């Protein structure tokens, strides 16, 4: 994919280091922890419609998927209301799990209530649906992928998956949630939001 620089940065609403501007809230910007809570929203870049982002909600869990490279960030609200996150890599069908403490250390704490809000200019909703079976199947598929704990990465330098994720810059680019197919982060030509 050509890095045009026209694509806008997607951010998650991270407490402390970045505020959201010109958010595009969904009509129901909560993903309730209910058995029948399931929806999918497909966003497209108004300037580059081939670039899409998909926000998934299922029973309180929220996932952001970048179809171009298969990277997914799947947030889960713990019983104590803290949020953990798994970053999944479709090409490898593996993921890295971040406990709430890891997110705190890394400065990636999130407000669970804001996760269904896609931030950034130029993103418009192409499609929204609530087919529970489709959504459930997607989450069930991701659940089958093997994960490693972020806490263990320091002892896994010999693992080819970890090495690959390191080499393409996925492990710790905290502030970016959208990537080109080669793993490089999509950057905003408008700068960032403080």
């Amino acid at each position, binding site marked *: 994919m050509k890095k045009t620089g026209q694509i806008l940065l997607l951010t998650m609403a991270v407490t*402390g*280091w*970045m505020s959201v501007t010109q958010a595009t809230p969904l009509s129901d910007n909560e993903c309730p922890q209910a058995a029948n809570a399931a929806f999918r929203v497909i966003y497209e870049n108004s300037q580059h419609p081939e670039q899409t982002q998909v926000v998934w909600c299922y029973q309180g869990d929220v996932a952001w998927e970048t179809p171009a490279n298969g990277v997914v960030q799947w947030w889960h609200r*713990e*019983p*104590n209301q*803290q949020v953990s996150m798994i970053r999944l890599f479709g090409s490898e069908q593996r993921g890295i*799990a971040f*406990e*709430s*403490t*890891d997110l*705190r*250390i*890394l*400065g990636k*704490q999130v407000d669970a209530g804001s996760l269904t809000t896609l931030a950034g200019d130029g993103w418009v909703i192409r499609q929204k649906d609530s087919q529970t079976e489709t959504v459930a199947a997607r989450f069930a598929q991701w*659940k089958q992928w093997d994960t490693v*704990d*972020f*806490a263990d*990465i*320091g*002892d*896994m*330098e*010999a*693992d080819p998956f*970890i090495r690959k*994720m*390191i080499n393409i*810059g996925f*492990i*710790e*680019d*905290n*502030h*970016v949630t959208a990537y080109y197919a080669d793993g490089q*982060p999509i*950057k905003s030509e408008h*700068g*960032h939001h*403080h």
Partner: protein
Amino acid sequence: MKKSTLTRGLLTLAIAVATQSAVADLPEYQKSSSWFTDSQTLLQQKLQNSREQKAVKNVILFVGDGMGVSTLTAARILEGQQQGKTGEENFLSFEKFPFSGLVKTYNTNQQTPDSAGTMTAMMSGVKTKAGVINISEDTLRADCASSKGKEVSTLLEMAEYQGMATGVVTTARITHATPAATYAKTPERDWEYSAKGDCKDIATQMIEFPIGDGIDVAMGGGRRNFLPKEMKDVEGKSGKRTDGVNLVETWKSKHAQGVYIETQAQFDAIPAGTKQVLGLFNDSHMRYEADRANDTAGEPSLTEMTKKALSVLKQNDKGFFLMVEGGRIDHGHHAGSAYNALTDAIEFSKAVKAATENVNLDETLILVTADHSHVFTIAGYPTRGNPILGLVVSNDKTGSAQTSPVLADDNKPYTAVGYQNGLGYADLGTTTDADARYNSGALGGRAVDLSSVDTKSSGFHQEALVPLQDSETHAGEDVAIHATGASAYLVQGDMEQHQIFHIMSRALGLSKSE
């Protein structure tokens, strides 16, 4: 009076007389200085240290994972400062032990080691490759076939053969490399819940432990490695096992009188007289000590687990072997978070103290060491009592503390502690310059101005010179070992890590040749 005791007494007297006569000529302000008198007292205490070989009934091996010497120094200062002192004069509990030494940590194939190879050295008496647990060095990592016939036995196994009680306590997963090296044999440390070829995964090896009556006390994290993938645990987390086996149920059926626990409440309710305990308190690693209160089902501290393990193991008249690991010191450092590493090291020190208070040191040897170090440094010239997690405030030309942080040549302040490599600076607090992080995940060097940043907060991660996107790394220098109790004198000088096995086996009389 024994000859050795008499000799030591005469030597003490001679030194005391000589010291007094020489000291008499020193200025009064020197002789009366607390620095002077305190160190005289410490010397006298050293002279009383026993070098007699006593029959050792019990051995406790404490391992601070990744607890290098700089971690000891910083943790002791932080603990002292938490008590309202300047900090530098503080001692961690085990730093007051009478004997200590340095330990060389390399693996057979790595200058800077990992926990699998180093703990194998301590538990078996032979070094091996990084990533390999209790298989000799001529195996290939992660190659099951090449590991066959090359398994080595561990001190815990030898203790079980003798009918002793055995225990493993950790804040990491109980199947993680360090605890696993007490009981398992595998060419790949990551085979915690599944393995390749006809090798068995580590969790299975723990539950099927074939010697004696099995491991009597096992407490830590890693519950998911014992449960089927389809099953959710008490905290709603899924198991990892793909073979459908529920190893918790297997353990319960093998140990009908044993107690299986998962929560703080269950831990607190372990009946007196219980002789076998399996405690799995988290699906993965247990919480950092600083974060323990946030656990859903509640977790005991390392100190609490140590005390409980001792109360169970001490019931065996033949003695016990217990390994206690502070497993998350390592993880705090890997994440570049000195706060979490140091607060876990302080908790580790408290666990050691609890052990000394709950055993008879005339018949118990306690060793405290680390498996390896980390690239963690204490730098600059901070003034006495400078917050160890703070910015460096130096002294002026008169040697008095300045009032503001010293600036480096880039006109920015810097922290006293930092890392040689790793993720680098990240701030969790107020708005920072996020631009710098867009270009690279890891921020090496001097990316930001820390003037207005609270570097002492629990979420601050220190600067790192060399940016590494996966994590900060282990370091290759020696680690410390401290010893107290019966036969503690065997620990002294520079040692190879595999000597630790021989010290323990000799002390317990498990190896007649020694």
